[in-house]
């Protein structure tokens, strides 16, 4: 009996010691992955190019706010996280950061004072950044940007997520090795891999996360799960690797057009991807865009799509049905005629380079119907880009359609033409009505 009490007491002490250790021990900071020669200077303009490719602005510039002065709300499954001010202001920004402090934020998700950043900051991807790019980025933020004094609201998540020391366990379990080691068969593909896996952090949305820690299931193409489709908020982030995914079906030119201009012959970017195109992808040098496209095509997987329903073998006669304008049409078809037909047409095909094709559209047929529902409720905009300056706006229909009607309409487009995705329920719609609209208008 005494022995048992001692064992239990010992275990309790051990747990307390481990917890205290987790909470109080100084965090290990990853060192530079390359020892650059003393006096190394990044090439002119390199820092800004890295900042653009890494899309720092997407989170650290608030809508209508000063560049990089923070304040954008990032909605996550565990609560609202405020992006910080990363201008070189000494009081409210990162003006006091040394190069090592800066690298620790990028590589280890550590603030200068040792507090853990939430992994909404994509440091698991930025960890792969080369030391040259870390230096260039540091120089850009410290010397090229003007300091902006702007305080950002403190992120306050509910217990247990406010216990930031818990992120240590997460980091320990989830972080890939630091730095990027070329592993593909050409320099061009390795450049594409570096851009996609490290800077552009595409995996943050497009890689599925595990159910336990929400960590991405892989950080590079050698992982079979990498870029096979994820979920961001209610939106599907499509599978990019399956043989019948849009990214693999499109020609190189069409894929490049979507990424660089926001739209191509059949699709337009929506949701968070619009920000990535607007702030980052459209500004990449042509050679980088070609590297990204080559890389994405090279990591194709010979399997059916994971996150969307397979198309019908024989398309439904939807176009003829709609063209009949018959009063006998079901509610979904009637609503399509009343609300959608003017732009997307009875064929569902829309108009090349203007109105997205709904037949086989990844957002329409996704297993996760939240993107489609949000689009119908709130509308969206394809951003203005230098190649396609006209900002194309789809109006929201939430004020015009009740939840039953949105469900009937969404179900109709998910099951028309060659689409064969499961029905949407009124409850699915009710959940998203009134949700924070992350679309940019």
């Amino acid at each position: 009996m005494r022995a048992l009490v001692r064992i239990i007491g010992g275990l309790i002490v051990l747990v307390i010691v481990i917890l205290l250790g987790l909470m109080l021990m100084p965090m290990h900071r990853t060192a530079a992955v390359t020892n650059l020669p003393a006096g190394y200077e990044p090439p002119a303009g390199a820092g800004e190019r890295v900042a653009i490719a890494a899309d720092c602005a997407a989170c650290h510039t608030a809508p209508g706010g000063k560049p990089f002065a923070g304040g954008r709300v990032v909605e996550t499954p565990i609560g609202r996280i405020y992006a910080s001010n990363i201008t070189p202001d000494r009081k409210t920004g990162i003006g006091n950061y040394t190069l090592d402090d800066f690298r620790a934020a990028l590589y280890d998700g550590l603030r200068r004072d040792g507090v853990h950043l939430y992994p909404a900051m994509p440091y698991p991807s930025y960890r792969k950044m080369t030391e040259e790019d870390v230096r260039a980025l540091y120089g850009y933020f410290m010397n090229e940007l003007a300091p902006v004094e702007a305080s950002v609201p403190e992120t306050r998540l509910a217990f247990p997520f406010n216990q930031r020391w818990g992120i240590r366990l997460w980091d320990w379990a989830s972080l890939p090795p630091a730095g990027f080691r070329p592993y593909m068969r050409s320099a061009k593909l390795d450049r594409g891999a570096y851009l996609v896996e490290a800077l552009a952090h595409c995996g943050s949305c497009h890689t599925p996360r595990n159910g336990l820690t929400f960590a991405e299931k892989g950080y590079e193409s050698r992982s079979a799960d990498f870029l096979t489709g994820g979920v961001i908020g209610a939106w599907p982030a499509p599978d990019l690797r399956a043989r019948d995914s849009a990214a693999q079906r499109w020609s190189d030119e069409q894929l490049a057009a979507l990424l660089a201009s926001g739209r191509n012959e059949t699709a337009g970017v929506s949701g968070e991807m619009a920000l990535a195109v607007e702030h980052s992808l459209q500004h990449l040098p042509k050679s980088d865009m070609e590297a990204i496209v080559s890389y994405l095509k090279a990591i194709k997987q010979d399997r059916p799509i994971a996150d969307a329903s397979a198309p019908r073998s024989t398309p439904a006669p939807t176009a003829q049905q709609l063209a009949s304008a018959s009063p006998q049409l079901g509610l979904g078809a009637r609503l399509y005629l009343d609300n959608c037909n003017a732009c997307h047409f009875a064929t569902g095909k829309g108009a090349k380079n203007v109105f997205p094709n709904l037949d086989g559209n990844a957002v329409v047929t996704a297993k996760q119907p939240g993107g489609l529902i949000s689009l119908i409720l709130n509308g969206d905009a394809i951003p203005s880009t230098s190649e396609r300056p006209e900002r194309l706006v789809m109006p929201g229909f939430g004020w015009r359609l009740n939840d039953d009607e949105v469900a009937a309409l969404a179900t109709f487009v998910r099951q028309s033409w060659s689409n064969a995705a499961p029905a949407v329920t009124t409850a699915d719609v009710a959940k998203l009505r009134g949700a924070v609209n992350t679309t940019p208008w």
Partner: protein
Amino acid sequence: MSHAFLDGYKPLYFSTTEWAFIRAACARLIPSEGEGPGALEARVPVFIDTQMAGDFGKASDWYMLGPHEPGANPLLGFQSPLTPAQIYRQSIALVDEWCTEQKGKAFAELGPDLQDEVLRDLQARKMPLKAELRDFFVLLLQNTKEGYFADPIYGGNYRMAAWKYIGFPGARGAYLEWANDKGAPYPLGPVSISGDRG
């Protein structure tokens, strides 16, 4: 059809006597007896009242600074210094006064034939309305037609009754598949801006 709604409606702009005039005048311009719905069934008076209380009645986006030449040739367009709402108010008072002097009752109290006579005189400018008010009948007729055919979101064309009557399919705005079928009847009922289906 009953006009219980109109009886219970509290006008935003018109006084009780003005409201009686508007209802009576609209009822003669698009009468209820006939094939289609009348102005009252389509709640046209609600449309006019709403407009008078709103930007149109206040001429909010019209050029209303001088010089005004109310007596100028009508071909030169609207020349009155008064807003449409003021024109309605002053004209209704004058017409009612004239009806009481000439026919013994206010306009709304007269029988349909006498009301038609008064409206005809108004249209033919036989009524002694000053130049500032001479567009009254033009406005009244125009606003009655607008209230009859405009989208129900503006208060008239109740339940898209006027659209259903003439077979207008409403705010759908997409008839590509029908563009080449000249004369073919379009089978589907109308839709309004707010999404109501008829």
